[in-house]
């Protein structure tokens, strides 16, 4: 009983000292941080380097950084193996090519959802009953299939262009793009 109360008496001042030390510490760290941050800000009075100067941020990962890690893990962890194209389902993967630019002389497109070499990209231009086609080969580009630029020669007037992709593993058609 006596022992206990003695302990209590010693601990209280210790507790107060610890609190004061921690408060001073946290305040000084906070101020230090503010100074560092304001130095990096552009247009403030405390700018010491020309604006746009690069930096290396050595602060610990932020909550967002940690959240990004967790989210990514969850995506990876819950990933179900996609049905492989080599599965013998006999069905081709349906993909949608995307036209990034089209003119009367050239069409550019890519195919997302598949990474492969050797497929064929075909641009088909339609004007009334007239149809003109041209092709380019597909090749892999990091995370998708790139169509080589497709050269085409369209006459005057408005044309509607569609790019289709075809390979043993996948096929699909893009949305139409109008060229004046």
């Amino acid at each position: 009983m006596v022992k206990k109360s003695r302990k209590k008496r010693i601990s209280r001042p210790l507790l107060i000292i610890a609190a004061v030390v921690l408060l001073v510490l946290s305040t000084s760290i906070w101020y230090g941080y503010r100074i560092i941050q304001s130095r990096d800000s552009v247009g403030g009075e405390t700018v010491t380097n020309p604006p746009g100067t690069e930096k290396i941020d050595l602060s610990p990962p932020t909550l967002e950084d940690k959240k990004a890690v967790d989210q990514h893990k969850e995506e990876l962890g819950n990933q179900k193996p996609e049905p492989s194209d080599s599965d013998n389902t006999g069905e081709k993967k349906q993909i949608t090519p995307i036209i990034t630019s089209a003119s009367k002389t050239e069409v550019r497109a890519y195919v997302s959802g598949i990474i492969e070499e050797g497929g064929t990209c075909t641009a088909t231009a339609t004007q009334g009953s007239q149809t003109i086609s041209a092709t380019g080969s597909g090749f892999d580009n990091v995370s998708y299939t790139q169509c080589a630029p497709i050269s085409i020669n369209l006459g005057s007037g408005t044309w509607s262009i569609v790019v289709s992709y075809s390979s043993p593993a996948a096929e699909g058609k893009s949305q139409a793009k109008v060229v004046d």
Partner: protein
Amino acid sequence: MIKLRLRSFLFVIVLGLVITLFIPISANALSGSEFQAGRIMDDGVFFNSGSMNVQQIQEFLNAKVPSCDTNGQISIYDSTYGDTVTRKIYSERRGISTPFTCLKDLRQDTVAKSAETNLCNGYSVANQSAAEIIYGVSQSCGVSSKVLVVLLQKEQSLVTDDWPWPIQYRSATGYGCPDTAPCDAQYYGFFNQVYSAARQFKRYARDSNLFNFRANTTSYVQYSPNASCGGSNIYIQNQATAGLYNYTPYQPNSAALNNLYGTGDGCSAYGNRNFWRLYNDWFGATKGVDYSWQYAGISFSTGSSHVIGNTQVTVTVTAKNTGNQAWSSTNFPVRLATFAPTNHSSALYNSSWVSDTRLATVGQSVVLPGENGTFTFTINVPNREGPYTERFNLVAEGAKWMPDPDFSINLTITKSTYKWQMVSQSSSQGFALSPGSGSQFTLVAKNMGNTTWSNSINPVRLATFIPTNRNSAFYHSSWVSSNRPAVLQEPSVGPGQNGTFVFNVTAPSTPGFYVERFNLVSEGLSWFEDPWFEFDINVGNFYTWRMDSQTSSTGTFTLARNSTSTFTLTATNTGNVTWNNSSNPVRLATWAPSYRTSIFNPNDASWVSQFRAATLTQASVSPGSNGTFVFTVKAPSAPGFYVERFNLVMEGVSWLQDPWMEFDITVN
């Protein structure tokens, strides 16, 4: 209980610390509105292989994973199984075993790569840390280490992951294996991923025509792989941005940008957004400092660029901030400066400028991108005839010169003419002055030139001339200086108007005829064209007079023999010496010849003497005033017509100059 209290207290302190640490970070957070879809990153930033050295990369990786959970001991909620387990168990459930190797601790054998023109310079086999690999690839391929670090985070969160799985290293940069063919060994592993990615960014540049997105072209970029989400046409401004879109062909939609640190909507793609955000947060601006401007207007206090030489004109130049940096008047202040050649000395220099090469600092404290800034300054127009052109540019002082928008100030100068003509000259005491006497001279001059005369700015003054700035014998202490008798009286005298110069003179002590040449000068600017102007001054004592009137008390100059009459002569003192009637009195004396005996002398002692008919009546007659002489005559006994000549004499000094004065008297 005490332990509990202490623990909870410490918890509060630590929580407080964490909160305070995060306050400044969120205060400086990036805004999605700063994302420029056509210019995600500048080439100079992207392809800067010197952005970090190995040690800096290692320090950075260490900082982002303060402690690696190598054995997976931290708990995690497993949503698939609905329980909380250690990361070790969570991973084992998915076929992944510990230990985990964090990026900062990763070591790997690199793979030999041969050099390829305009791609990478190859690689040698070595056992290297992740930091060494990142640095080595950056050096070999000429892509910034910072870009590669951000790419690792953007694709697999590897930089901040404290329990990474092997699968994350396998596609560390998102470089995928083909779906329909066995994965090429060149894509396997961390080193291959980093090298392939850097090489691919170089390939987008070297073989740009093969790919969708190219610098300086407009392409359609979707918001997500789902075509129905749409997209927009983007003018891609540089190779770095083209490369980023070729690598990840989606742009963030507004939902993704509005919630920059979180998720957008079902049509949001985050790759390029996160790349841009992470780079900004970790390494600063993705764009080099872009200070640039466009001419937006100029105005002159004269109303137009047609100006007159040797005048001062206030000019305001308006410039649009077309860069990505706010202009400041204090931090790296933006100034209008002489240019082409830079910092040349300008013929327009005015002492009000910031310096001899800096015309003015931007007039606003801050000019944001897209806004207009103004520069107001005074120029001294050089006095030359015809067109005048001078090049200027803006500089952010201490930071950089802005790209030259080919700006110049163009003036059409009419040369100033400084001409005048005398309208009148006068002297309060006439131009015959006694030695040492004073007078006030007045010159009225007509402005025959094309500039307005002023008596304050470059004041127009009367100056001694021939030789220029000679000292004048007529100097008076009231003069502006020994060679500037007077300044223009009127504040301003326009072309065709008259100006007045009034000044006091003191005649020199040496008698003589003085020709005093003067001319006008606009101080600090120019002497006037010499119209040949002079004051001609006679200095000396001049004793002259003329008759004003002569009268006879009988009312007539026809006198009866031996009769008497009183004659009065009124004489004007036309000389410059005052007459008096006491010391050296002025008297009327017989004349032609002098000391002639007059037969009209009454010989009754009324005359002063035989040859002096009368003394001046007045005590004093100053120059220009009249004096009278009164004397009695007695007609002779012999009738006839008499011509009696008289003159004035200042006794003991001088005869006065003979004006030919006579009394014509008929005696009958």
